[in-house]
């Protein structure tokens, strides 16, 4: 029966969603060759599109579809606000959505997602922090500090305290314009040990302390960045001498000739995950499909397409990932141990409050 291409049938309600627009559907069917699945088994996956979804598609969805015989239809979407609309309308058409861990956590708390069945999905070899009740980790990335090697040579900053030290490392900084990943480095720079960061941040005084620390650095912050493309470009152009940002973007910029380096020391380890929205039409198949793509053999494919790491530790052990590549990944055991895992619960509880304080600071 070969490959079959079809387009997902969108419900009329999907028009309300600003993202259901370009539903490019690619379906993979292995027909009767697949084991344990009938031809009727199918799932619809919604992700962010672009090179990120392409990597997911090549590394996870296509091979898993082939192995299980489940028909996969891919769509793009705009985030949990779309899921909320569809759930509220009672017209869910997606079985699996890709999401940031923080959004997934909040969407779960709001009742927009189905709890995952970890009897079906085997997460025994996962990093323990890279899964939650409503969402299973799909890839790992880090929020790191990067510096211009033309400005500082080999003697770049070693930790967040150095990032804050404008005497020792004079030069322009860029920092995130949103609160996510912005407060933790400030506390570490202020001397809070990594394991205490979220504890301190869980009080108003703690947040105030972080905000004040950033206020200290504010005169040296030339740019408040708003996207990964932007902070990568800032380093490439030498517009700033030091910035925070996502490791994968810096790798691309360095490959592209940027005079930059970054460190995993005290970086924030975060992950993207997969969730099943409430009312998913093929919930059980979706669960099976998530179990499949969470296996180490698929997770090990990811770094071939994007420099985000697998969430399944075992992926490093099955010899599929080249060692040189592995050492660059955020979730490599050597790197992971240096980092502070992002606390999803803290974000669920405090992000809105912290964001208001942070915006006050930025607009001051």
């Amino acid at each position: 029966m070969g490959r079959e291409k079809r387009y997902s049938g969108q419900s009329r309600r999907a028009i309300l969603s600003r993202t259901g627009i370009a539903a490019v559907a690619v379906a993979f069917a292995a027909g009767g060759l697949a084991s344990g699945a009938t031809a009727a088994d199918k799932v619809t996956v919604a992700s962010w599109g672009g090179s990120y979804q392409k990597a997911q598609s090549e590394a996870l969805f296509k091979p898993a579809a082939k192995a299980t015989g489940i028909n996969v239809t891919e769509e793009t979407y705009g985030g949990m606000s779309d899921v909320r609309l569809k759930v509220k309308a009672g017209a869910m058409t997606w079985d699996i959505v890709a999401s940031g861990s923080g959004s997934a956590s909040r969407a779960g708390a709001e009742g927009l997602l189905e709890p995952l069945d970890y009897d079906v999905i085997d997460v025994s070899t996962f990093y323990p922090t890279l899964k939650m009740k409503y969402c299973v980790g799909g890839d790992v990335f880090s929020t790191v500090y990067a510096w211009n090697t033309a400005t500082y040579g080999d003697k770049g900053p070693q930790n967040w305290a150095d990032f804050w030290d404008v005497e020792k490392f004079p030069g322009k900084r860029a920092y995130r314009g949103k609160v996510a990943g912005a407060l933790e480095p400030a506390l570490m720079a202020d001397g809070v040990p990594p394991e205490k960061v979220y504890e301190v941040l869980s009080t108003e005084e703690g947040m105030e302390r972080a905000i004040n620390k950033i206020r200290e650095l504010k005169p040296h912050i030339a740019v408040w960045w708003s996207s990964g493309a932007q902070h990568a470009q800032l380093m490439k152009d030498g517009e700033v001498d030091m910035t925070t940002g996502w490791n994968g973007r810096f790798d691309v910029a360095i490959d592209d000739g940027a005079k930059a380096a970054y460190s995993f020391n005290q970086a924030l380890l975060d992950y993207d995950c997969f969730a099943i929205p409430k009312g998913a039409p093929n919930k059980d198949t979706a669960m099976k499909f998530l179990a499949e793509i969470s296996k180490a053999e698929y997770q090990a494919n990811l770094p071939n397409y994007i420099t985000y790491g697998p969430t399944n530790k075992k992926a490093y052990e099955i010899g599929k990932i080249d060692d040189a590549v592995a050492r660059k990944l955020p979730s490599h055991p050597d790197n992971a141990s240096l980092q502070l895992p992002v606390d999803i619960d803290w974000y669920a509880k405090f992000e809105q409050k912290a964001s208001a304080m942070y915006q006050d600071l930025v607009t001051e």
Partner: protein
Amino acid sequence: MSDLVLRSAGSLATQPNQTELKQDALRERFALFGLCSPALLLVLIIMVLPVGWLFWLSFLGEDGNFTLENYQRMVESKSYARIFRNTFEVSLLTTGICILIGYPLAYFLSQLPRRAANLCMITVLLPFWTSLLVRTYAWLVLLQRRGLINEWGMDIGLWDEPIKLVHNLTGTLIGMVHIMLPFLILPVYGSMKAIDRDYMKAAANLGASPAQAFWRVFFPLSLPGLFAGALIVFVLCLGFFVTPAVLGGGKVIMVSMRIATNIELFFNWGAASALGVVLLVLTLVILGIASRVLRFDQLLGGGHGS
């Protein structure tokens, strides 16, 4: 009275084809309305409904119930007031600079022979043919710390340290003025071209020096175009997103950018819709005051004597 009754009674009974002609007139009016209705429907669908929808959403909380929290938040958090002030400041400044640059430019164009003016007009309009994003990033390349302008400036020795031209208000204004300028020049040029040259001759003949003729006759006559252009620029600026986001370096935060942030942060359209509603209301209020103070109607008609 009796005359009136007689006439109306007579007309009902005897005037040939009166009823039929009246019916024809009515039918014609209905037909005309019918022809308009697709356009009216379109306006309803693409203008009225979304604004109403926006308004309604702004009163919904995360749980989907009626709430004022979206508006309360704007009062409680200092950043919102700053962002609104920022938005209006940037829009006013952009409009002001566009006037200062665009008006003399439009005047120059209006005085050129037609062919030269057309040629220059094409260069004014040329930016319209390139993507806004491309133009904005082009400015980034020119203005940044190691951008062309700073490199040249330091090569020639005009300045020693890189000047901060971008990732701040300066860069945002440069980018926005560049994009907005044609919107100002076009209506101003149009209204200038419509000014009969004889007015200037008449003014000169009556004893006005060129400067007096310009300020007392030409300038007031060009004001309707200037106001139209300034209004277009100002309103377009209020909703600007890309240019301040790219050239402002996160330091120039406009309402539109905060709307995008809020959609992500609050999972809920209400928080963003409320911003849209407040921006809309503030804009209408400002325009209302402006039209009162500037008395648009008088600018379009004659002034008053002595």
